[in-house]
Structure formats: C-alpha cells, structure tokens
C-alpha cells in the first residue's frame, strides 16, 4: 500500500516559523524518497487560511487546515488531539514536526494517542531500504544515535536550523479544510498569554548568527559590546551559565547543557572558556569563532577561527571592520 506522510507546519500568532518551512521541505523530500503521498497540516484560528498558501513555496502539495477560534491559542491537549485525528483521517504512516517548544511537547502526546514510536530532535533523516533512519544527538551532543522505528506509525521531530529550506518553489498548494470535533474538555491546558523576553529580540534557538559572551566580559555593562556586535550582524545574544548565574543576563540567553541547544551558521564565543557543558549546547554550530585571551581555553578546540587576545580590544575592532565591510 502506498505510504502517506503528514507534516505539521507550526504557526504562532498568524506567522509560520522558519522551522515550519524546514519541516515541510524535509517531509516532502522524505515522502518523495518513500514514494509516499504528502500532506501538510496547519492548525489555528480563522487567520491561518490566509497564510497557508505560503507553504506551497516549500514543497507543500495538499494543505489541510483545521480552524477553530479556540485554536488561536496553543493548547497542548487540543493540538495533540487534532494532529492525531488528522493523522487517522488521512491514514498517515509518518508524522514530521519541528522540535520547537511546541513540537517537543506535542509529538510525544500524539505518539501516545496513536501508539507510534518516535525519534525527537533529529539532525538527519535518511531513507535506507524503504525505512527512515533518524540520527539524533544524545548526551548533550557528545554522541549521536541512529534510530529506526518499528511501529506502524512513526513520528519524528526535527531540530530547527539544521534541515535546509531550499529556494522558494513558487508552486501553488491545494487547500482543504477539515472539521475536527472539539469540546471544552479538549482544552485542559491552554496558553493564555505570552511574555516576550524583550521586544523584538531574536531567540538563540532560531538565530542564524549568535554572539555569546561569558565571564571574560568582567561586568554586566560590558555586554553592550556583545549587543553592538550582535546588532551589526543581525545576530542573537547568547550567554554562558556563569554570567546568567551572576545575574548579568537572563536565563533565556543561556546556551549549553542546562540552557538552550543551538545550531546557528555562525557562533562567536567571546570571553567564554568553553566548559564541556557550554560546548554541549553549541558544538553543532556550523562555524565557530572564539575570542579569548587564554590560548589554552577549551573553546579553541572546537573553534574554526580563533583570536587569542583581549576581547576589549578585539571586539571593538571587529565591530568597526564589520561596519565597514557590511556597509553599515
């Protein structure tokens, strides 16, 4: 029997995340390799119909839309129910989602409902002999496992920023509304308010470039150097645990084992020693730059480019050079 693949495209407040496009593109690729039929699911309130066509650009063919004014706010219990029921409706064998805050929470619940094995936070998906083989980090990225799922239904969540979105296709996807019966009891937990860390701030898990600072900055006010460098690059600001514990920076900027796991294109570590718990969160960054005055700092073992020097001289010079070169 022909297989079917369903990808969940996450939106919040009427906007798709970049990771939603990554999931759709990857779902489409895997569906092609499995010769499977491909569906994309969007959930939300009345506004999602307006944004759903965008998904055609990233490989979506049939977009299924579940709309309910109550779905405008994220509810784990309701979202899991909708996804599980849509999976059953279209008889999907595979579900792909992003390993975002939402995806990580929803996917295991859907798995419980439909008795599906799952692999979370995958960094690679390959089809080998008709089977999807997932690679995912364990032990905070100190090792990887290759996982195969043996149940009939299979769920994979994809680490954001790892899978390519590709060029826009300019294709038009078909849209279909699906009715799912929801009652109040399905909304056992509901997100009723979001508190932005700081208005307009880029989150480290979503950033292409991160400029992270550590204890080498000596005092909280010196973080303006990091902010200025981040600003020139359009980057997010990250921090080591030492400075978060000291109260210099908020916890949502912490990168590492007990902070966030990031995979940006470029990670610039300034005055960070590179303790194993910090490396755990950022070592999968594509390109790593370290600025540290200690030539033996462990950060240099993972850095692609390093400057052994005083950050208070190097960073201002770097800001100046970047402004010149990037024409800012």
């Amino acid at each position, binding site marked *: 029997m022909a297989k079917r693949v369903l990808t969940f495209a996450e939106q919040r407040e009427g906007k798709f995340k970049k990771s939603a496009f990554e999931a759709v593109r990857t779902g489409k690729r895997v569906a092609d390799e499995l010769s499977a039929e491909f569906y994309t699911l969007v959930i939300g309130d009345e506004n999602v119909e307006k944004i759903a066509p965008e998904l055609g650009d990233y490989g979506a063919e049939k977009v299924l839309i579940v709309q309910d004014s109550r779905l405008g706010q994220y509810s784990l219990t309701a979202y899991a129910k909708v996804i599980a029921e849509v999976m059953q409706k279209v008889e999907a064998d595979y579900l792909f989602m992003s390993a975002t*805050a939402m995806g990580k929470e929803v*996917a295991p619940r859907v798995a419980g409902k439909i008795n599906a094995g799952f692999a979370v936070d995958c960094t690679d998906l390959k089809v080998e002999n008709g089977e999807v083989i997932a690679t995912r980090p364990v032990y905070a990225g100190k*090792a*990887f496992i290759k996982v195969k799922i043996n149940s009939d239904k299979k769920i994979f969540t994809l680490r954001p920023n790892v899978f390519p979105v590709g060029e826009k296709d300019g294709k038009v996807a078909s849209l279909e509304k699906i009715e799912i019966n929801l009652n109040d009891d399905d909304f056992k937990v509901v997100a009723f308010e979001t508190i932005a*860390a700081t208005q307009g701030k880029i989150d480290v898990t979503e950033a292409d470039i991160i400029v992270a600072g550590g204890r080498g900055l000596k005092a909280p006010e010196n973080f303006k150097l990091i902010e200025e460098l981040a600003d020139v690059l359009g980057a997010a600001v990250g921090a080591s645990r030492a400075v978060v514990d000291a109260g210099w920076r908020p916890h949502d900027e912490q990168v590492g084992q007990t902070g966030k796991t990031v995979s940006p294109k470029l990670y610039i570590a300034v005055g960070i020693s590179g303790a*194993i718990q910090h490396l755990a969160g950022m070592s999968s960054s594509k390109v790593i*730059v370290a600025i540290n005055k200690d030539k033996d700092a462990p950060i240099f*073992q993972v850095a692609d480019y390093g400057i052994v020097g005083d950050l208070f001289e190097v960073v201002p010079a770097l800001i100046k050079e970047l402004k010149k070169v990037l024409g800012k």
Partner: protein
Amino acid sequence: MKIAVCVNRVPDTETKVKIGADGKTIDKTGVNYILNPYDEFAVEEALRVKEKFGGEITVISLGGSENVEVIRRALAMGADRGILLKDDSQRDTFSIAKALAEVLKEISPDIIFFGKQSIDYDNQAMPSLVGELLGIPSITVVVKLEINQDGTIIAEREIEGGRERIRGKLPIIIGAQRGLNEPRYPSLKGIMAAKSKPVEEREAVKFENKAEVIEMLLPPPKKAGRILGTDANAVEELVRLLREEAKVI
C-alpha cells in the same frame, strides 16, 4: 495532596562519552552517576507543594538496583517513600513511560513531577507521553508554578523568544526546567532519615520497544581551528575568512 516525582540516574555532566562494546550505548566504565539535574528541580517543587498543601511524596525510578541511590537522594531531600521499578534492559521512552504509567495509575497522584528531560537521551518526552497514557494534561519546560486551593494552576513555560503562561487544573504533570526553584541540599538529618524511609522494589512491567538504536556514533572530529592572531590586527583576516571561506556573513 498525593504527589509523585519520577527520577532518573544519569552520567554526570563532565562525562567524556566513549562508545561501548555493543556499539549502541556508552561505555560505562569509570562513569560517575548522579541524580538527573532537572529532576532536582522536580523534587524541590514537590517538596514545596507538600509544604503548602500537605500530603505524601512518592519517588519513582526505573532502572537497575543502583537507581536506589537517586531515590535515596530524593528521600534525603524530604520525599516520603520510594518505588524502584527494577529493570536492567535497554528500554525506549515508550516502554519506560508505560511502566511508569502503570504504577502512577495505582497511586493516582494529584500532581506528578518530572525533570523536563533526562540528560542522557535528552528526549524531553516523558511528561507528555506519561500524561497521555494516564489521560491527564501536562505542561513541560516549566519555570514558574502557581497552584491554587481550588485545584486550578497557572504555569509559565519557556518558549522561543520568551515564556508562555498556561492555565490548567489538577491532576496534572509538570516537567521542571532550571529556574523553577533553587533545589535544597539534603541535610545530615535528612540523609539519616532517608535510610529508614521505605523503598519498595518491584519488577517493571515489560513492554515492547518501538524505537530501536541501530548504532551510536561520536561526532565527527573537528579539524583543528586556525588561530588568526593575538590582537586586533587579526580582525581584518577574520572578517575576510567569514565572508569568503566560510561564507556565513
């Protein structure tokens, strides 16, 4: 209030991972084990709930006999009793969740705490999956929890770019994130008391694995990076390399 906390025993964060002889799990020789760091926040929050509402805290762990260590640690912090689900096999998340859910069904707690993830397999799936298996809601990556007398709760969880506030009701499962509280250290008195607290041992119920590890690999070695200089003069070269070689800016 009936309170449960599920805890795990994991290699400490400094562990240098080596692949074991089976090629699928880590080499355990010389590895130091600890109570999963996120579970400390879970135990602490359970203690605070008990301090506010009264009740009993049951600590549950699934694993070999050595998992009794982490149960005792939670008892030393102040939990009341432990259940060790004995199992030496390699289980996937699904099969662990099923075994935990069996016992939790029996206890039927008003609130169940987990750490948001175990730092070995980093699945971050247990609170959601066990919640589904028990038919009760869950909230994970929780950094703030407020429980009211009428059983309604408000929790804050971390999301991209901030936090979201969640409304819910008991019974519920909470996945604790760092920031939720400051875990206490077991006192000497607590450690002594823990020795006489009951820890029941049972065989964990068997369930099939749905996910199978085919192979464990180490990350590809990074080729040694280049030191471009020792002062601000290296900056020009750095920017050139980032643009022309790495092509990231």
